[in-house]
């Protein structure tokens, strides 16, 4: 059943109790993303160590189960990475969500592979990638400012 692949337990758990939800005071990076066709709205906050290593990511915003779960997973999985590593990771995830790359279900990607179900629902891919695109924008703006 497709639907069960979309609404896997792990996704619903992240949706109901998203990790790292809430603002960060004085973040190094703060970026808002908006999906105009549906109104999903997300803001991500990043604290860096040494202007490069991601110390923590938080988010606020409203959205569907897919977008909330995907954002919640993002905050877990990118923690500890350098800006460059994070951008790479985001690109990889986006390629997988476009169906251009197979899903890897090891290491960091293990939990994320729950997102594979979204591929069968093309209209929902935007929900899954909103926060990722938003964070990427924020990271690149930060790099350009340095």
């Amino acid at each position, binding site marked *: 059943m497709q639907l069960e692949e979309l609404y896997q337990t792990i996704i619903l758990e992240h949706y109901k109790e998203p990790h790292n939800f809430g603002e960060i005071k004085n973040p190094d990076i703060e970026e808002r993303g908006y999906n105009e066709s549906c109104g999903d709205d997300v803001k991500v906050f990043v604290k860096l160590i040494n202007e490069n290593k991601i110390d923590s990511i938080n988010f606020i915003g409203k*959205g569907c189960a*897919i977008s*909330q779960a995907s954002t919640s997973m993002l905050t877990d999985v990118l923690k500890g990475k350098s800006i460059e590593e994070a951008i790479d990771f985001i690109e990889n995830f986006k390629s997988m969500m476009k169906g251009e790359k197979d899903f890897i279900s090891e290491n960091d990607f293990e939990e994320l592979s729950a997102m594979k179900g979204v591929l069968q629902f093309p209209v929902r891919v935007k929900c899954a990638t909103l926060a990722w695109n938003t964070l990427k924008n924020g990271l690149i703006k930060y790099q350009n400012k340095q």
Partner: protein
Amino acid sequence: MLNIEKIKSDFPILKRKVNGEKPLIYLDSAATTQKPLQVIDAISNYYKNSNANVHRGVYSIGHESTEMYENARKKVAKFINAKSENSIVFTRNATESINLIAKTYAKKFLKANDEILVSQMEHHSNLIPWQIIAEESGAKLKFIPLIENGILDLTQLEKLISQKTKIISLVHVSNTLGTINPIEKIISLAHSFNAKILIDASQSVPHMEIDVEKLDCDFLVFSGHKMLAPTGIGVLYGKENLLEELPPFLSGGEMISEVHLETANYRQTPWKFEAGTPNVSGTIALSTAIDYLLSLGMGNIHKHEIELTQYAIYELNKIPEIKIFGPTENRGNVVSFNFENIHPHDISTILDNDGICIRAGHNCTQPIIRWLNVSAVARVSFYIYNTKEDIDIFISSLKKVKKIFYAT
């Protein structure tokens, strides 16, 4: 009484299966309606038999297409009881009709410190054009606020309206709340202040009898695609003398009389407002759509929709986690609701898996969504081809949503 089985059989798309073997249950007619074979065939037949540019060729099929086009104008005029077909301007959609009035009326009449009045429940199409015109002209845009479950605050309206008010632009039936506004009362209030009034009838003309003569509104707009006709055809009704006073909107071929390099004379209303080759097939198909609606009877259609809406509300109310928005009575065939802790998108996706189309999001009414203090709503809307069985299937699919989300 409508014979829904017969009606359903006129709509080829309703025979279609989605997501495997699920029959299509279409509950998004407020966004756009499905089309009966009669309307689809009207388009094909036009191109197979009579296609030629209008108002140009002296030859037979050119005359034929022009007659068909102008007869459609007469049909529309009669449908909304306009005194003259010269009151009917064909546009792309309701949005363009509103822009036409905003851009020509404002150009001619609005000055700084004049006031424009709209409500807080407008569709974006009846809001943004006025924001832009207000900025360009220096006029002030004011808002009739919402109260209770989403009705207009008429007490506030009476405080807001004044001799400064030059135009009121108001939705008849809200596409999100379902509210039916007391437009008769507001039209005469407007006129008592010498203000003009435009009615956005996008959600009423397809569903009930509208009589512009009786209403006495100055302008009224709607879209063909929300009343069985194809996309790309909209209507602007205007009192003939008012249209005659307005400057042209777009310009070019068709709308002119005599042209010199430096100057041009324009044709009379309504052709003055129709620049370039119009959507001929769309216009003719709109005429067929009106024939179809009239053959059912607007009264019967309205009655059928009220029944469906009441049934849907009754059934939805049985699910305790569901909250319905909008007034409890005197409402159109649109029901917006939320499911506690479940985002409308997720509802829509799960329903879609059962072949059910519902709308999820802001419905092009972000100010209402903000007023409701939610991030989005789910919406069902009904038309002549829907049945109580459709609603039963919808409700049982909603229970599946609940199971998926509330189980873990």
